[in-house]
């Protein structure tokens, strides 16, 4: 979220500054005494054309910069979404489902493309078990996801884990639809998340 608001204006500023450098300094035409000759009319036209061309070039470069900023923002958003998507677990289990593994593979790609990005994985449980045991179960769920990533090459120090047990439910309610949303790992970027590159 911070990346989106800070990066785009900064980028625009840089691009606009570059565009401005390429433009000739414009001075107001000196007052010419009559008679007017054709040469001076042509020169004035040429000058007006060149000003228009410079203006068009400037607009074009701004549009390009905007498009690039938009592309980068979309890339960041897609990478952010992949990196922070929760994964879900079965009751009293830390086993990774196929879906969870696929989600972790997507995160793996983003982490590989962004070597300065660090994350924290928070393990959570539904409300059904013992409050105390659930802290340990949440820890195990977070550790399981971390292990998946570190065994595939992500540096250990880039991932912190924490357990919230059943203390921070994502969904209120006391039925399976709430419980299934609460048995999860959440992924939070702790640093290096300003401009994420796409997975590679």
């Amino acid at each position, binding site marked *: 979220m911070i990346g989106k608001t800070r990066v785009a204006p900064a980028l625009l500023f840089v691009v606009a500054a570059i565009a401005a450098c390429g433009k000739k300094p414009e001075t107001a035409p000196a007052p010419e005494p009559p008679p007017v000759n054709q040469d001076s009319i042509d020169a004035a036209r040429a000058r007006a054309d060149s000003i228009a061309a410079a203006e068009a070039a400037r607009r074009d470069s701004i549009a390009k910069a905007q498009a690039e900023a938009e592309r980068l923002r979309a890339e960041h958003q897609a990478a952010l979404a992949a990196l922070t998507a929760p994964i879900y677990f079965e009751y009293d289990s830390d086993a990774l489902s196929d879906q969870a593994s696929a989600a972790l593979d997507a995160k793996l790609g983003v982490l590989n493309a962004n070597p300065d990005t660090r994350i924290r994985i928070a393990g959570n449980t539904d409300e059904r078990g013992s*409050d105390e045991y659930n*802290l340990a179960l949440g820890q195990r769920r977070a550790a399981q996801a971390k292990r998946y990533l570190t065994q595939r090459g992500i540096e250990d120090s880039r991932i912190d884990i924490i357990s919230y047990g059943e203390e921070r439910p994502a969904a209120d309610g006391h039925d399976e639809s709430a419980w299934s949303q609460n048995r999860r790992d959440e992924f939070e970027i702790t640093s290096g998340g300003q401009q994420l590159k796409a997975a590679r």
Partner: protein
Amino acid sequence: MSLRIWAAAAAIFTVAAIPAHAQDTTGQRGVRIGLTYTPGTKPGVVVLPVDGPGGDSVRAIIARDLDFGDRIEVIDGSGVSQTSSGDGAVSYGIWKSLGAAALVQVTLMPSLARVAVHDVTAKKIAQSRDFPIAADVGSAQWRMDVHGISDEIERWITGVQGIARTRILYVKGGRVYVVDSDGYGERAVTSSGTAMAPTWHPDGHHIAYSQLGTRGWNIEVLDLAGGGARPVTATAGGLNTTPAFSPDGQWLVYAHGAENGTDLYAVPAFTGGAARRITLGRGTDNVSPTFSPDGRRIAFTSGRSGHPEVYTADFDGSNMELLTPFNFGDQNYRSNPDWSPDGRSIVFQSQLDGLFQIMTINLRDRSIKQLTSEGANEDPSWAPDGRHVVFTSTRTGVKQLFVLDTESGRSRQLTHSSGSRLSAWSRYLGRAP
């Protein structure tokens, strides 16, 4: 019971003056005074009106404490219209006709409560003693002093000390609270944050609990008598939770988890230092330790069989055995053990039809007794009498603490603000200096 009627009765009831320096008629403390009442029934006791500042409260607290002890039948004498016999003596006959085996008579003096227990059948004072009592009526210390009087009266009459002068720790809204055994005097003892799993040091004024920080959970020790919280676990991150002090107060056992499951560790309770590992869970979860009264063994929850069950082991982790039986393939879930003060049984929670219920297991014959069935009931903790248990129940629709008498099945609600859980009952608390 109606205090007004009591006061009216008091106005016309003349009590016998207690001898200024009454003798302890048993010769030694803690010996039953041999009141005459039918064996197997609870002795009927009347608490007489108390004059003086806070007298009504003293009478009400003592009557309530004796009632909550579940060993005495407190008789409401408020309907009694007794006229003085003229010589200032207690008219025992009328109390006997009400079924009273004993009368409790309290006389308040500056910083002192003179307490006498009358034997109604023998028509005499069976026991009396002076108790120090805080001068500030209604203060926490004054209340604890009155509870202490109740406990001694219960010992005089039944031979067993009461549990009124005890307190209960619990968690509500992320903070640790403490409340007197009768549900009064509730106060928060941690100011902010997310705390869990509070437990008592046997000294009765230090507590430990698990506190959530930015990088994980740590164990903190707090002196309720004053001073800030002190972290015990040195681990910067990860999970450190479910602390339990050894009965001698020297060790703190807790669950530590990082990336390979959660195991039990022990550290010196106050000096900290290197943690000694107790369990080898091999990636499983091992939490919620509780000591046997002699400190030699621990019981704890472990998921090593594939789902949570209660195990016991020596303090060093050896001689481990499964305590709660299970059937292969079932989804049962048993956890949160608390070893009884008499050492004979362990109370725990077991999932039935998706809800936890409180059960005890006898350590000699492994017989199991189910104590609750209404709502979900969790996190049991023994009172020091080994008879009452405090636990979390949803029977009123929200989480509240309840106290259950495991012998009679009688229960009472301890807290009245929702979300109370993770209770821990203190030992008998001494009188603060």
